[in-house]
């Protein structure tokens, strides 16, 4: 018996999708020519660059954070919605839908907060064949100063009101795009759901200043010596996005079909968003960095992973991880793990050692060649000893043993040792270790039953209730 071949085809809020990979509403979906090329490359859908009354943009518009030589770990922009006439955008949507009927085109919309304005734009977008509507309640810069974008998304009542107006008119699914620039994203999500939204998308970009030029003292991106807070995105925001996705999908009053957004660049990222309950994922920064072609591996990699795991469709694993995210009070206090260093893999960098001493709990030691375990030797003592060691250039023939020491083998004295009795199982050493699987966190069976903080302190707590 063979497992059926997995497929990426999926249905999102009633919209049939060739695959769950959509381009987010952003520069990569600015015009029809781009979107058609994206579909040729393999994208299953595109959320059009937000349509509204055309605006005038500034130059420059983007800036980014590099990290240790890698470009664009985080990216921000102060670009506004489409600067092209509404008619041009709508005409091109019609053309794309005519030529790519199976691909999903979502019209992202943003107009002033008047019922008629929303009715009008909804009608026009649907008339040209958009498969669905995304309400941009998230844009955090510029548009918010004009009472649109995140100015709406940050106030649940406004969010609810406008969604309701749109639902009065809309015949296609309505997706409300949420802003992360809010203390509890569940509130606008609940408001949208109350108003009858068919789906949500999250997250939009995060308010940010990416950096200051140390010569001019001017922030980035620079517009004639000034800047403004922009929307942050890219790999750096993925953990924030995952958390907000979980918050929404873990809340019955908010949960809806959700299109996940935020730092997605690979099939791995996509799988994680789907495991937390997303129906589709939207990508922007990675495409701005590398082009539409990245979708090939996203498809290929996700299918291969699904095959390996025995999943046939995204439905098979959507939300699988949601039950595994719980409040801290439900975590098992009796669960015990300790770090174990696999000597044969250790390269002797001793980053785990310095991390444990300075950043954790002082339970990794350099005493493997000491006569007995020595937990009293501090990093300063190690460094002082090293400073007094006299070394010289080994010369073949002159120095017996010169060259015989192979740098392929880590000297025993450089391999740190974990004091398992004191290790708190924090993971830090395994996180700083550059070598895969060199430090593993091993479960210690201490024979204690699972017990959470809530269970342990039941009946003894007398604190102010601050949670909703």
């Amino acid at each position: 018996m063979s497992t059926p071949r997995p497929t990426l085809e999926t249905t999102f809020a009633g919209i049939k999708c060739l695959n769950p990979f959509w381009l987010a509403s952003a520069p990569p979906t600015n015009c029809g020519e781009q979107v058609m090329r994206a579909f040729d490359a393999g994208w299953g859908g595109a959320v059009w660059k937000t349509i509204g009354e055309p605006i005038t943009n500034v130059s420059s518009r983007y800036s980014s954070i590099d990290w240790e030589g890698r470009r664009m770990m985080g990216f921000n922009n102060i670009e506004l919605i489409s600067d092209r006439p509404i008619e041009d955008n709508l005409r091109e949507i019609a053309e794309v839908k005519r030529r790519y009927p199976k691909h999903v085109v979502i019209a992202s919309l943003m107009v002033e907060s008047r019922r008629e304005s929303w009715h009008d734009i909804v009608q026009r977008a649907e008339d040209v064949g958009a498969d669905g509507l995304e309400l941009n309640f998230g844009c955090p810069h510029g548009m918010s100063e004009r009472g649109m974008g995140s100015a709406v998304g940050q106030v649940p009542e406004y969010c609810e009101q406008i969604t309701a107006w749109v639902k009065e008119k809309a015949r296609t699914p309505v997706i409300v795009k949420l802003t992360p620039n809010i203390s509890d994203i569940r509130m606008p999500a609940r408001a949208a759901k109350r108003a009858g939204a068919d789906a949500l998308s999250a997250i939009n970009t995060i308010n940010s200043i990416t950096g200051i030029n140390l010569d001019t003292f001017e922030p980035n991106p620079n517009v004639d010596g000034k800047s403004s807070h922009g929307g942050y995105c890219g790999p750096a925001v993925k953990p924030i996005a995952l958390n907000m996705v979980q918050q929404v999908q873990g809340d019955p009053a908010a949960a809806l079909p959700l299109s996940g957004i935020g730092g997605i660049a690979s099939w791995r990222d996509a799988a994680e968003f789907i495991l937390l309950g997303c129906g589709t994922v939207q990508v922007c920064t990675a495409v701005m960095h590398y082009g539409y072609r990245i979708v090939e591996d996203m498809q290929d990699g996700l299918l291969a992973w699904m095959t390996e795991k025995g999943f046939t469709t995204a439905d098979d694993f959507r939300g699988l991880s949601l039950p595994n995210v719980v409040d801290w009070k439900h975590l098992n206090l009796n669960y015990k793990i300790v770090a174990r260093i696999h000597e044969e893999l250790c390269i002797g960098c001793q980053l785990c050692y310095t991390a444990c001493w300075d950043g954790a709990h002082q339970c990794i030691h350099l005493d493997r060649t000491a006569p007995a375990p020595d937990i009293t030797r501090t990093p300063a003592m190690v460094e002082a000893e090293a400073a007094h060691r006299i070394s010289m250039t080994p010369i073949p023939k002159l120095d017996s043993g010169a060259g015989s020491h192979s740098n392929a083998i880590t000297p025993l004295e450089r391999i740190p040792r974990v004091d398992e009795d004191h290790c708190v199982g924090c993971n830090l050493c395994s996180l700083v270790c550059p070598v895969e699987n060199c430090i593993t966190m091993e479960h210690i069976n201490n024979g204690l039953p699972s017990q959470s903080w809530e269970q342990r302190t039941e009946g003894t707590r007398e604190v102010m209730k601050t949670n909703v």
Partner: protein
Amino acid sequence: MSEVTSFRLQFSSSPEIAARFEDIHPPLDRQAATVEANRCLYCFDAPCTAACPTHIDVPQFIKKIASGNLAGSARTILDANILGASCARACPVDVLCEGSCVMHRYNKQPIQIARLQRFAVDALHVSGNPLPFEPGEDTGRSVALIGAGPASLACTAELRRKGIRSVIYDARPLPGGLNTYGIAEYKLPLADSLREIDLLAQLGVEFHFETQVDADLLAQLESNNDAIFLGIGLGGIHRLGIAGEELAGVTNALDLIAGYKSGTITQSPARVVVIGAGNTAIDAAIASVRLGATEVHMVYRRGPENMSAFSFEYEHAKQEGVKFLWHVQPTAIQGFHSVESLQLARLAATTDGSLAPQPDSEFSLRTDLVILAIGQGTHTALLSTGRENAEIKLERGRISIDRATGQTSNPKFFAGGDCTNGGREVVDAVADGKRAGIGIAAWLEGKHVHA
């Protein structure tokens, strides 16, 4: 005493030599350096630092390149090794810092420490800024240093930073010793060695050039100074002791290298034989190729497994087209007015492991130039005359010192570099000199306290 502020400006390099001895490891540009710096794992108690005889804090200076703090990076390097620019070029890093990099066990490509170090120190040189150190407040103490090579220069740097007057004596017209006259030009150009010493000289170092220190002068210096540092290096290259050695066309590797580096030798005859198989021999052989020789042989009594040259130097020589004759011994140099051929005998191992000429194995190798590179003698005769009362102990011709302080058996005398270790690398001499400088200051301080 030299009043000249720039040694570099006293020397004009030959464009022909520069063209023939192009940089073997071209410098990194800023972006390449940043990318490479970011590869460094920033090891704790890093093996590269431990392997460096001067213990440069390698991860720290690399981190500073990554952060764009180039001035700080150069300071970290120079604080540990005042000749950091030379060492970045001349060090056999394959057996030192880069050889010990943990990356050999990670992605197999060690961090290019030497090129990063060069990048940081070059940036200081280009900036035109002085060394990031100041001379210490004058202590009224004074030390004479014999020899202006790396050991003395490193010792001087420590002394000056501690406010101790230092006066250097050298037989040559320019400072730097073998660092200036003896490093293959494609690794470290003579001019770059001088540029580095120019900075050091700004700490207020007094130089006496073209001054041969004999026993009389040494005695005088001993009475006029609080301590003496001996950085006298090794003596001339050994002679073979065979017929024909006095013919024109017989030279030695050090003279050849110093000659071409200073521009007095600009070409080589067509056929060259280098006798010996150490690093200096290889430098001479490659230099001959670069100077236009069409056939260069190296001859050595033993096999490649016994050569004292580093294996990467051997590989380099092979790439340059140098040919090797193993297990042969020169028996005579032949020629009328100048060298025409070298007579060689094949050697075979005897039962006791020594080598003996094979009967009837002699053959002749036509050559225009014979370069001797079979090791150097010592200068220690200087120390043995009239010093019965305050003997400076020698061991197999080397001055014996306390490795941690550089102090000799005569407490007023300190020493370091080739004259104490038998001939190693620039970085070893720098490490010796640094320890001796610290050792001298501590010793003088101790004397002061006791008095």
